[in-house]
């Protein structure tokens, strides 16, 4: 059987300026929508253990499922060549599980995943600035202390695959083929269970809320009208008029976006990047390469320190710049714009100063964890579902474990 191609095939003829610009736009949308929808992967998971709510976790599964469906359909119908879907598939190994566990623990302790860390930092939360700084330090610690060993195990195949690409591509694993039919079938094998499970979790949570309260929750009507985004409970069914008012309020930034609306927009954003970047670059949303690695490198450049000349990982794994650089910068601009225009922007410092120390230490663990796992909740986990890989599942499992431990530790602090 012929080995699948590992030569990228661009879909559109674009200049690099256009590609960078479009990635920047996608970053702006990501930051804006995440801020308006308060989209946090960590919060979706801590909710399972603290409030026993599967609503937001269900939304995450919907996000992964819709992304897989979108990218899979585009590839199955030949719009995007299969090689552009699997070319950047990650290695798979022990480091994904261990790294995601460390990441989940650190992020839950610090107060945000990579995405929420950035958009909250851009909205003025000092806690997340500290977490971001901790993450940069953690990345450096990983680079000098862990990467040489991890790199060795990856090259030697010790509890690890020795390459990425089609090796971790599910259509190839299941059917030994990257044909349209193989991709089409695999897309539904991956996407449908995620979407159905996501819908079920949300329905189940809403149902339970309805039963536990008898369909009503007390609250000052004025305040409730001001802020009841997310999925309407059984007691708050919208009429057509209320829907129009909700849409108007969201457009005028008076009201946050609902969880499911944010999910759909973010999935479309990922699919947009998948399409426009196909054949040119890592055509998925990715954050950590830039905010953890590059920005730390950039901060030291004016001081005459060039990490890329002599520091492990920095000198062999991190190009000077790539489309994710502008994406992350514009993510921050988008989040700042959304928070500023909605009146939410404010410099916020936690009253309990212990939280800043926890934020820094948690951030360091985030930096170490995401580099070990070869990416974060966005760049590895969410992206990998779009790549029809299996690392996303491993990361999800590890991250849940880390978050669970963090919740237990927080209860004792």
């Amino acid at each position, binding site marked *: 059987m012929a080995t699948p191609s590992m030569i990228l095939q661009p879909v559109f003829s674009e200049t690099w300026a256009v590609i960078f610009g479009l990635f920047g736009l996608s970053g702006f949308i990501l930051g804006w929508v995440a801020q308006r929808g*308060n989209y946090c992967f960590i919060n979706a998971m*801590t909710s399972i253990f603290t409030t026993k709510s599967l609503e937001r976790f269900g939304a995450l599964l919907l996000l992964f499922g819709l992304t897989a469906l979108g990218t899979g359909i585009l590839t199955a119908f030949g719009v995007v060549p299969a090689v552009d879907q699997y070319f950047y598939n990650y290695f798979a190994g022990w480091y994904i599980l261990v790294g995601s566990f460390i990441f989940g623990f650190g992020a839950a302790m610090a107060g*945000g995943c990579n995405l929420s860390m950035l958009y909250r930092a851009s909205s003025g939360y000092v806690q997340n600035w500290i977490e971001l700084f901790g993450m940069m330090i953690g990345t450096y610690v990983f680079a000098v202390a862990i990467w040489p060993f991890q790199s060795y195990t990856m090259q030697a195949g010790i509890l690890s695959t020795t390459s990425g690409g089609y090796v971790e591509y599910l259509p190839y694993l299941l059917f030994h083929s990257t044909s349209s039919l193989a991709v089409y079938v695999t897309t539904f094998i991956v996407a449908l269970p995620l979407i159905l499970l996501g819908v079920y979790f949300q329905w189940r949570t809403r149902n339970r809320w309805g039963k536990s309260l008898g369909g009503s929750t007390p609250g000052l009507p004025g305040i409730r009208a001001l802020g009841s985004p997310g999925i309407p409970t059984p007691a708050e069914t919208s009429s057509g008029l209320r829907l129009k008012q909700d849409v108007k309020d969201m457009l005028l930034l008076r009201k*946050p976006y609902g969880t499911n609306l944010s999910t759909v927009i973010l999935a479309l954003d990922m699919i947009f990047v998948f399409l426009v970047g196909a054949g040119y670059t890592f055509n998925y949303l990715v954050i950590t390469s830039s905010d953890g690695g590059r920005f730390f490198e950039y901060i030291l450049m004016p001081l005459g320190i060039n990490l890329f000349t002599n520091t492990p990982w920095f000198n062999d794994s991190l190009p000077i710049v790539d489309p994710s650089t502008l994406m992350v910068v514009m993510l921050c601009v988008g989040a700042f714009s959304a928070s500023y225009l909605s009146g939410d922007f404010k410099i*916020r410092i*936690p*009253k309990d100063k212990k939280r800043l120390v926890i934020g820094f230490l948690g951030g360091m663990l985030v930096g170490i964890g995401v580099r070990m796992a070869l990416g974060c909740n966005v760049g590895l986990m969410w992206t990998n579902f779009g790549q029809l890989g299996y690392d996303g599942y491993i990361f999800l499992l590890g991250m849940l474990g880390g978050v669970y431990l963090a919740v237990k530790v927080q209860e004792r602090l």
Partner: protein
Amino acid sequence: MEDVLKIKEPDDTLDVVGESCPVPEMMASKKLKKMKSGQILEVLTDHQPAVDVTLPSLCKNLGYPYMILKDGDLFRFRILKVS
């Protein structure tokens, strides 16, 4: 229940001003576990999403009535622990 939440002074206060999710609901959940039935916990926060989504989620899950009072830039999220 609404009158109780509005009029009665809170039995305990949790100040999470400056914090963002998931801290408010995690801390609130922790405090509520230690409180007795009939007591009111007041959570002070300036994090809109906590007021809009996560704290109400906590209350809905536990079946506790709640009320939100706006005090300038701050929100006073009052939760009545019921058996």
